[in-house]
């Protein structure tokens, strides 16, 4: 495996994609759509009843970022969901496999091309993401961290979609399965978590002399179900905003800035991990959830990439059903 081989496949992939023509229109529509929504969101925030303390930049950043993440996750399967079986259908894969390019080079080259294309889409969302940074509401460090995490999560989706395209013969099925995987990560994880809450809850009492029965939830046993969720990973990985000081009379109170969707989400999942059942807006943060989630997602991507490379290895011993060798 060489960088030259990976680069060759990636360049070829991007070149053939770019020349299909519709790209400029698609990217322009994406640019206008995402930034238009971001702007509307901003206008809505400014029109809303916010206390003068709150800068609209904070909720705008969080809201737009989560929106961009979900939109990116929706777009990405379409970008890489047919990278292998599409080539098979067009009859261009076998001629590639008989060259000196190795399965790993073909896999990583195609992955790099799909990921690179998604990153271009991410770049186009920057105007509305960076507006709050330019206003000073969000520090550049926070913006950088969340962008890197978003890029990584999009890469995970690329790798998983690619693996589906290598596993399944028809591109329609593989794109569908990529969306199902996305849906499982975004919606399936909170659903599983909700279902697991009553299952893991313990019933206490009645204590002697009383008839009070209460159930104690043990979210600390099942918090990990939420951790692979891309929204959770992104929100929890975002560095906390500095607390604001409020002076009332001679007392100084410190509180986290309100209407910060990322921070609120992060505090709730950390509370869930602590799991004392109280959900209080605790001063002390619990241990972070995102390292586990991100590690899980990256492991998923690594496994998917290895699987893709294995499926591209020739000579083929088993020919999967419906797959044309050449």
């Amino acid at each position, binding site marked *: 495996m060489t960088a030259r081989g990976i680069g060759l496949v990636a360049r070829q992939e991007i070149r053939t994609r770019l020349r299909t023509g519709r790209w400029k229109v698609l990217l322009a529509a994406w640019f206008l759509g995402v930034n238009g929504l971001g702007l509307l969101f901003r206008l809505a925030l400014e029109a809303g009843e916010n206390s003068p303390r709150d800068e609209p930049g904070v909720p705008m950043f969080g809201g737009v970022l989560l929106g961009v993440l979900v939109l990116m996750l929706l777009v990405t399967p379409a970008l890489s969901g047919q990278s292998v079986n599409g080539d098979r259908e067009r009859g261009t894969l076998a001629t590639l496999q008989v060259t000196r390019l190795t399965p790993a080079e073909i896999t990583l080259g195609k992955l790099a091309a799909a990921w690179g294309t998604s990153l271009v889409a991410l770049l186009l969302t920057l105007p509305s993401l960076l507006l709050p940074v330019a206003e000073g509401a969000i520090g550049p460090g926070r913006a950088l961290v969340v962008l890197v995490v978003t890029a990584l999560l999009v890469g995970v989706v690329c790798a998983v979609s690619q693996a589906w395209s290598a596993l399944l013969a028809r591109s329609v099925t593989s794109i569908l399965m990529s969306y199902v995987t996305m849906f499982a990560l975004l919606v399936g994880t909170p659903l599983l978590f909700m279902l697991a809450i009553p299952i893991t809850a313990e019933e206490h009492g009645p204590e002697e002399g009383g008839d009070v029965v209460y159930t104690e939830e043990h979210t600390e046993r099942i918090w990990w179900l939420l951790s692979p969720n891309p929204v959770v990973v992104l929100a929890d990985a975002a560095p906390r905003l500095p607390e604001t000081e409020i002076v009332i009379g001679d007392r100084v109170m410190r509180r986290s800035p309100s209407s910060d969707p990322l921070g609120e989400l992060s505090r709730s999942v950390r509370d869930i991990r602590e799991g004392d059942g109280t959900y209080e807006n605790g001063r002390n943060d619990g241990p972070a959830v995102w390292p586990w989630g991100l590690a899980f997602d990256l492991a998923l991507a690594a496994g998917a990439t290895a699987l893709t490379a294995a499926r591209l290895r020739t*000579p083929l011993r088993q020919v999967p059903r419906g797959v044309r060798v050449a």
Partner: protein
Amino acid sequence: MAADGDLGIEARGVTRRFGPVEALRGLDISVPYGQVTALVGANGAGKTTLLLILATLLAPDSGTVRIAGHDTLTRPAQARDALGWMPDTFGVYDQLTVDEYLVFFADAYGLPKQERAGRVRALLSLVHLEDHLGRPVHALSRGQKQRLGMARALVHRPRVLLLDEPASGLDPRSRIELRDLLRSLAADGVAVLVSSHILSELEEIADRVVLVDRGRTAGDHAMAELAGASARVAWRIRSLEPERLATALAGLLDGRPSMRATALPGGTEVGPLTEAEAAGLLAELVRADVPVTGLAPAGSALESAYLAMTETRR
């Protein structure tokens, strides 16, 4: 060169099954350097499966396959270096230009950068596409795409060349050019294996013929041996009075069960006969006062061998 002498391709006892279907059941084939070998067989006889195995894409269930002396299972990379392959149907990257397409494959085969441009120009003139330099691939006709595929297969100067139905979709001129190209490659020492259904054409291209039937080698002949004066083929006889010819033939062929006479619109086909036997038959027909206007070989020796092989199957 390879340790096993002069064989570009050597396959022994190759079997391959797809689920319940036995595609190959112990096929042997050897393709020497410097010759064009034709692979002939009915649809479903296993030709394409064999070519996929030889092209290092498919693993045989059992048996050994060596390309230029390299086992395709244990050393596929070395085998690929020596191997040029053109499948029966293949896609091209429609968005690229003709030269970008070939430069990409030159790169993929690891040709040094300074060599690529020259190699691509040489290939384009070899397949007569030099006028299409810089034009997009999707503007090519089917035959031109086929020739581009041929150039792609040759990009790394392989010593072994596998072609699956290369003549399909080619116009008559391109076929003649393909024939000349394959002959010149063989003259340069390349081992060429061609599968085709167009038997009359293979006769002009190939030095040897390997007949494949139901996954096994059914025959391995030198073309000279098949097509020489001693080869038996069908002959077409035309007469002014077809009824008289039919009666005379019926009498002459009586007691020779291996001979058949079939009345066809273009004349009556009799055979198989060697050239000497055909001359004798003509003499007898003339002696019987049949007004014969024409006697010519119908079909080719290769076709006869092929028909004889597929006949035993019924």
